[in-house]
């Protein structure tokens, strides 16, 4: 059985990051790290993506945007928060317009700390996310089977 994890397509969203983490995320696509080895594609379209990768915290302006993008992604999906700002707001946490980490608005599955998060850490996070994708799918199947049995 082919695993869904063999083809994780990724959507990269920049919340209110200082761009440090963004640079590192893009560094993962370069020849040095080459995440396309694992079939990762940076899609730029929520409707095609399996993993939502967010850098930077959530502010009042992008709150609705993040929610909407998340809602447009088809199941199964995983959210990865990259960098300490995405995890809980980081150094911007106390700012007047910052709500905090990504988990304030949507459920986050994987946290990748760091300022900026290193490419190795990001890849590690993505690989964990991929594993989670498979688990979610398994779970869904089992649930469906259980429901079927009950019925």
């Amino acid at each position, binding site marked *: 059985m082919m695993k869904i994890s*063999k083809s994780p397509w990724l959507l990269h969203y920049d919340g209110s990051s200082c761009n440090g983490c963004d640079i590192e995320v893009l560094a993962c696509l370069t020849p040095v790290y080459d995440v396309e080895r*694992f*079939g990762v594609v940076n899609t730029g379209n929520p409707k095609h993506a399996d993993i939502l990768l967010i850098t930077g915290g959530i502010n009042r302006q992008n709150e609705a945007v993040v929610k909407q993008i998340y809602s447009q992604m088809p199941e199964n999906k995983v959210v990865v928060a990259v960098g300490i700002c995405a995890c809980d707001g980081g150094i911007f946490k106390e700012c007047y317009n910052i709500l905090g980490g990504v988990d304030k608005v949507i459920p986050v599955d994987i946290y990748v700390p760091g300022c900026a998060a290193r490419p190795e850490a990001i890849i590690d996070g993505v690989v964990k996310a991929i594993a989670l994708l498979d688990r979610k799918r398994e779970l869904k199947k089992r649930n469906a089977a259980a429901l079927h049995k009950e019925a």
Partner: protein
Amino acid sequence: MQIMIKVVLFLILAPVLGGLLSGFDRKIGARFQGRQGPPLLQPFYDLHKLFSKQSVVVNGVQDFLVGGFFVFVIFTGCIFFAGGDLLLVFFALTLAEVFLIMSASSANSPYSAMGAQRELVQMMAYEPMMLLAAIGFYIATGSFNVSEIVHTATPVIAVLPGMFFGFLYILTIKLRKSPFDISTSHHAHQEMVKGLTTELSGNVLALVELAGWYEDVLLLGFVGLFIINLEWWSILAAVAVCILCYFLEIFVDNLFPRVKWDKMLGSTWLVTLVAGGINLLVLTLVY
């Protein structure tokens, strides 16, 4: 009976071949950039994943129209490999494309609407050359039927060099390769997201991908038609030329930045007129 076997073979083998070609494409592309790249079978993994995902659409007619696209692309391929009429092949392919454009327009979304308009411009750009190539075959071999075209004594390319060049030129558009991949592209991150396919996802998107593979095989079949004749070795030669052409397209894809639509339209029509037109003129004078 023989026709049935051919059709079934096409139905089974084309996606395998098309998927492998696509994987080959991604691998080579990565190597051009000094990366290791995904496994050769990556496109199959992608397809499998898409089929197993939830399908998210913006309205109820979208998947119907994409289904039309899928069915008619395969239909077209079947006509071609069963030895049917070349003009009919192009007309059926046009019908399929129109289905795809309608599905993109039906989404009422800015990105897919832009993709649809651009796709129409692309069709307008390549259509003349396709028809001219078919006419070239007709004049050279006396028939529009694929089954009769392959029964010539000499390879058709000997008398249709201009047509062949023109066809390669539009092949870049049809295979959605840079510099002419303006309506949708294999490459991520562009000004119109994914163009035509922006609003498609899950198994509906998988159908578009799969249809793309069928279409690629069909187009390479057309390239092969320039080579194949009565000799047995011509089939090997045709395969070699197809691989070479595909490699050339990958090369061009990685080498050139995308152009604007007016450049694409203008240059394609010019090439069609010069390469195709002069070839046609010479051909009518000789035959």
